[in-house]
């Protein structure tokens, strides 16, 4: 690499050597506006970017949902053509699952895992940046099919074959679907390996696995599910893509192929995916409920083990999505049983949340309302889920609105409400000011009412026989009234989302006139509350030594001689003040962005012109090698190396080589 000696005045006034790996990009120094965000490797900034992007796609997916509901509000709807309707409901599902809920959970995982285990960053900060940029590239790629692909995918989010083949879906939509999900899959795979290593390896001294907060545990289980579920859908998507692009015969029944193969591969991924969506939310409310009940979580180890049990059992229930596909009575029986069994650990969790609240000093803040709402709504969704476990009932319900009702109660009621609660809970930690509680409560109640108005009636519609994925219906089947109610409900949800964004804007505007929240505005229990709000760049001034679970709580509270809880220290006495010196942080880098930019180009190339693949491949390869050759730590950055003299060039080389390793392995999937 070319090294030019170019004196540059830093803020400290020191002369610095500007290093230009491969003579292209200057090593970013951080702290200068947008460039700082593009090159950041800070888990907190990456978490915020995930959150912002996820909320953007929430709006996109929400607009698609509103289009569906406008179309179905009355019989013989003519707002959308049947073809556009297929694209809209497909992209609604894909967007909400892969571009909203998963990245929003990733936002919490990125931001909170290092803080909850007492670490300064994730194990591989640059890979973390890579995950984000690859994901956003995939997300943009997926949605660009509206503009350049001749419309969105039109095969439903599960994209059953042979419906997804060229014969029935000739536009490029399905190609964009397959490649887009492959790209976002690479992002999630890299991220999951990174976060697993972070949790297992980066814990503060004394932070044993069974002292970790339940949220960290649930996120860990989620990452394992991602790690093992993603390769399965990767296989499915590759097979689909090879069928469509190269004329392979994986899903063509005329050539003796078996379309059910797709269903198996998809749902072996797809059912763990349900738990990938729900477990982060379970973790979040497991932090909120104890805090606002002023009690430790009831049955901590049961909570953790039931989460792990869900993680394992989630692999043995996939065929309950396929009861009517003719898989045979033995399979139906086995998957029916396993599906009923998986309700047990979920039930354990619900009872433990209730027991945590039982006898507690409850404070109904917005975050707590969302958490309680999550428990209630998820219970409804879980109960309708048990009705699907009964194969005869499921045969009646399959492909009706009853299914739509069920999984929205689970995903929206269980997943989204919990994530929203998490926003209100951790907002002060992330942005240094609280969200307005009055508007927050308005947000909660409109969202809860709108949600039930929208999806409650779908149970009735489904049992009346209204099938899903139809673009309209005729009058006279008794579908009119409840469809109208559902459509009104969907606009109430939209209103609640507007309330949320207004709240974000208003709270930020009002923040300077309000007292700062301080490190611990909720009197909470886990480590992230012992550091200032917003979190300083280096997280912890001094890595805490952990002596118990709920460490932060035990630093504030003790017991008197009668075993009554008494306050032993104020927050100010035990919190850190954010004034560390000599903390050594990984240097920012542009290379993750460069590497990530190559992948969508390869995708466009596969669809339109193979030369683009060459260009994308070159960009990715350049990113990989430049990254590998760039030391993890900027030797010229201005931090205090006083204690760190052993950290010489040798070390940088090690890290370069190891980073290269990680790159190459991360790169496998795209080849």
């Amino acid at each position: 690499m070319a090294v030019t000696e170019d004196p540059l005045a830093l803020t400290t006034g020191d002369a610095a050597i500007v290093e230009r790996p491969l003579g292209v990009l200057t090593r970013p120094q951080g702290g200068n506006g947008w460039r700082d965000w593009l090159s950041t490797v800070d888990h907190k900034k990456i978490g915020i970017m995930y959150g912002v992007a996820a909320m953007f796609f929430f709006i996109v997916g929400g607009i698609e949902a509103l289009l569906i509901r406008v179309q179905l509000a009355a019989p013989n709807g003519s707002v959308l053509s049947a073809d556009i309707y297929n694209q809209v409901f497909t992209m609604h599902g894909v967007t909400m699952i892969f571009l909203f809920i998963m990245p929003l959970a990733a936002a919490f995982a990125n931001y909170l895992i290092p803080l909850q285990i007492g670490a300064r960053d994730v194990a591989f900060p640059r890979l973390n940046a890579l995950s984000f940029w690859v994901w956003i590239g995939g997300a943009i790629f997926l949605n660009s099919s509206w503009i350049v692909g001749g419309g969105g995918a039109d095969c439903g989010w599960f994209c059953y074959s042979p419906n997804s083949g060229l014969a029935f879906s000739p536009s490029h939509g399905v190609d964009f679907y397959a490649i887009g999900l492959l790209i976002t899959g690479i992002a999630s795979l890299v991220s999951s390996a990174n976060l697993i290593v972070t949790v297992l390896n980066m814990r503060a001294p004394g932070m044993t696995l069974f002292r970790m907060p339940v949220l960290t545990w649930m996120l860990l289980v989620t990452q394992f599910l991602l790690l093992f579920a993603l390769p399965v859908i990767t296989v499915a998507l590759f097979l689909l893509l090879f069928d469509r692009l190269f004329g392979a015969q994986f899903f063509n029944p005329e050539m003796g192929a078996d379309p059910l193969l797709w269903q198996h591969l998809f749902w072996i991924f797809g059912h763990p995916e349900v738990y990938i969506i729900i477990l982060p939310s379970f973790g979040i409310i497991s932090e909120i409920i104890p805090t606002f009940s002023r009690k430790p979580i009831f049955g901590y180890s049961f909570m953790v083990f039931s989460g792990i049990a869900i993680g394992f059992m989630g692999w043995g229930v996939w065929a309950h999505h396929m009861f009517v596909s003719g898989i045979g009575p033995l399979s139906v029986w086995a998957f029916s049983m396993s599906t009923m069994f998986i309700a047990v650990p979920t039930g354990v969790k619900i009872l433990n949340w209730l027991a945590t609240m039982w006898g507690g000093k409850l404070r109904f803040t917005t975050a707590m309302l969302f958490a309680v709402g999550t428990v209630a709504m998820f219970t409804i969704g879980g109960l309708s889920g048990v009705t699907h476990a009964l194969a005869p009932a499921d045969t009646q319900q399959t492909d009706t609105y009853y299914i739509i009702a069920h999984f929205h109660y689970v995903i929206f009621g269980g997943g989204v409400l919990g994530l929203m609660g998490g926003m209100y809970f951790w907002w002060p930690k992330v942005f240094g000011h609280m969200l307005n509680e009055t508007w927050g409560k308005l947000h909660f109640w409109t969202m809860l009412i709108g949600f039930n108005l929208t999806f409650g009636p779908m149970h009735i519609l489904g049992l009346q026989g209204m099938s899903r994925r139809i673009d309209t219906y005729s009058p006279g089947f008794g579908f009119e009234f409840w469809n109208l109610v559902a459509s009104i409900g969907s606009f109430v949800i939209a209103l609640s989302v507007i309330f949320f964004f207004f709240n974000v804007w208003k709270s930020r505007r009002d923040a300077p006139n309000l007292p700062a929240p301080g490190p611990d505005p909720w009197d909470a229990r886990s480590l992230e509350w012992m550091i200032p709000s917003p979190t300083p760049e280096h997280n912890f001034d001094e890595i805490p030594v952990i002596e118990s679970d709920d460490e932060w709580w035990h630093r504030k509270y003790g017991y008197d001689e009668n075993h009554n809880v008494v306050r032993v220290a104020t927050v100010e006495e035990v919190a850190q003040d954010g004034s560390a010196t000599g903390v050594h942080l990984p240097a920012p880098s542009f290379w993750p962005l460069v590497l990530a930019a190559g992948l969508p180009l390869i995708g466009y190339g596969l669809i339109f012109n193979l030369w683009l693949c060459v260009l994308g491949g070159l960009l990715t390869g350049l990113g990989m090698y430049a990254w590998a050759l760039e030391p993890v730590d900027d030797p010229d950055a201005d931090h205090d190396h006083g204690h760190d003299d052993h950290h010489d060039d040798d070390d940088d080389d090690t890290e370069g080589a190891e980073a290269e390793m990680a790159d190459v392995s991360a790169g496998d999937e795209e080849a």
Partner: protein
Amino acid sequence: MATATDAAVDTADHGHDDHGTSTGISNTKLAMWGFLGSECLLFGGLISTYLLYKTRRGPGPENTVIPTDVFDIPFTSVSSFVLLMSSLTMVLALSAITRGDHPATRAWLLTTAMLGGIFIGGQVYEFTSFIREGVGYTHNPASSAFYTLTGFHGVHVSLGIVMLMSLFVASKQGKLRQEHSETVEIVGLYWHFVDVVWIFIFTVIYLIPVD
């Protein structure tokens, strides 16, 4: 804060030192194990697909030849043997770098890469001869599944060769020192994994008879 703590914190920060991690396994090695776990499911899916389709011939006369009609077991056995031997040379490369014997490290890295290259060459030959004998990629589900499964494996071997050659060049430039032996070990983990997967694939495709 005491300097000692500070240094300890700093080590944990970099996280690339195995004595700074909670498990005692270095971050990179743990990440590689996680990645290989994920790869098991990738090959699991592809092998299942092949098992489902291995006898599925297409309807037309030009579509009926499947890979098991034309494969050459002795030929592929030899190339499989070559690939398995490359695991041995990989171990020798690791052993050389732990001793600090850099010329031997380079020699064994190059040998490993070359053995991998011979395997890939064999695969290219096999693919072309299959196509000459009428097993096209698009002819029937069996052939699509065969080429996809072995092709994915071939891509993995090729990426392994790229990694080995990167190590070779790094060593040539004097950047791969004795204390970096773990990097060689981690590339070795990947390489052995790819070999082990081939044992499964070879058994499934070539050794288990088709009824």
